[in-house]
């Protein structure tokens, strides 16, 4: 799949997924399809020609001209508040992609998969979990999803649904947990990462995504536990 030039994309649907994040479905004539884990660039152009570009992971995968994104508001940001609060069905923006060939899960991969997400870092990992759920792949998938509180989880219902079927799920809460939650609330520690992920002996392929600091900490924890660094793939969203 080659990367396209800028393509016009029309917003086909929007729905909130938390109080501060939104799922956007785009119709992109000419979109070549994409693999689970890839991202695209969005370009917005104001009426006077001013432009801004940002990268967003793609929650959907496979052939077809529809792509799904999920955007979390960075409160003092420029583009994310527009996409979450202002953009409406029928509005047109531009996209380029799909981008990235490394942070991608392939159905033919024979190894167990460990997903580790922080906040909106769930987006490309959900694309992988969805693709795995639809596929014939026999490999087990495990997700460790760190969020501030239960209400801050993007795609919460769908993840719970997958967890009943094809995904082994562990939540980690950094600010507030549900009542009676057995684990401590706070940043992930290496011990908790080790306890909630495949042991190195299973030789998993690990995908970690989220804010830069979260990704660094989680990747360091995986390596400290004995995972081969070459099997730990990371995508940093910045911040």
């Amino acid at each position: 799949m080659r990367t396209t030039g800028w393509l016009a994309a029309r917003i086909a649907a929007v729905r909130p997924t938390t109080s501060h994040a939104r799922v956007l479905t785009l119709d992109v004539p000419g979109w070549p399809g994409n693999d689970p884990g890839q991202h695209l660039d969005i370009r917005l152009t104001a009426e006077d020609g001013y432009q801004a570009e940002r990268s967003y992971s793609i929650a959907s995968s496979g052939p077809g001209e529809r792509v799904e994104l999920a955007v979390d508001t960075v409160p003092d940001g420029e583009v994310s508040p527009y996409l979450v609060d202002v953009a409406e069905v029928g509005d047109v923006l531009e996209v380029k992609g799909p981008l990235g060939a490394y942070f991608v899960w392939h159905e033919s991969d024979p190894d167990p998969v460990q997903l580790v997400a922080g906040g909106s870092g769930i987006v490309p990992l959900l694309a992988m979990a969805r693709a795995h759920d639809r596929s014939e792949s026999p490999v087990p998938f495990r997700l460790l999803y760190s969020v501030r509180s239960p209400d801050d989880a993007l795609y919460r219902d769908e993840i719970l649904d997958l967890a009943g079927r094809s995904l082994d799920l562990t939540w980690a809460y950094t600010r507030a947990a549900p009542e009676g939650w057995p684990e401590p609330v706070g940043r992930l520690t290496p011990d908790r990462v080790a306890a909630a992920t495949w042991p190195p002996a299973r030789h998993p392929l690990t995908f970690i995504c989220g804010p830069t600091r979260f990704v660094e900490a989680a990747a360091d924890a995986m390596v400290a536990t004995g995972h081969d660094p070459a099997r730990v793939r990371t995508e940093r969203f910045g911040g």
Partner: protein
Amino acid sequence: MAQFTRGFGSRRRDADPDLPPGQYLTTDFPVLSAGPTPRIPLSEWSFSIRTETGETARWSWDDFTALPSEEVSTDIHCVTRWSKLGTSWRGVALDTLFEDVETSFDYVMAHSYGGYTTNVPLEDLLDGKAWIAYEFDGEPLDPEHGGPARLLVPHLYFWKSAKWVRGLVMQQHDDPGFWEQNGYHLRGDPWLEERYW
């Protein structure tokens, strides 16, 4: 012709002539790498240049830091769209390291601890355009940012400035490195916005 996006543009940031197209200014030093951060003890660290004959010039940490170094003040531009202006580094110029290297090949593959590779034309490394940097802001370079030493090629997107660099291998053709095989541009000039193939 770009497509206008209704209602966009109220929160824009000021344009800056020092910024290449599509970049925004940051005052942090964000981290971008493909995997976890390797930690290399200085006693095990070495840097080498290997040519087409197999001849290899090699420097231990002590050899390397005894070479004449330069202070470099420069802007850096990451393909993920942040730019940082006026950063300051100390490093050894590639001109110094290539002084006694005989090669007829025009391209270089940089190799890093951790397995990362990136391809760079030799002409983008010589004539005061590139360094092996080991200090940032007067301090030893943090492992997160590529320490003990990283390639610094500031006129190209920053993924070319391989962190944790351990050697250069001359190559006849501009064979792609890690990110280049994974969708990034072969050369990566930020002013031409050479982000992806």
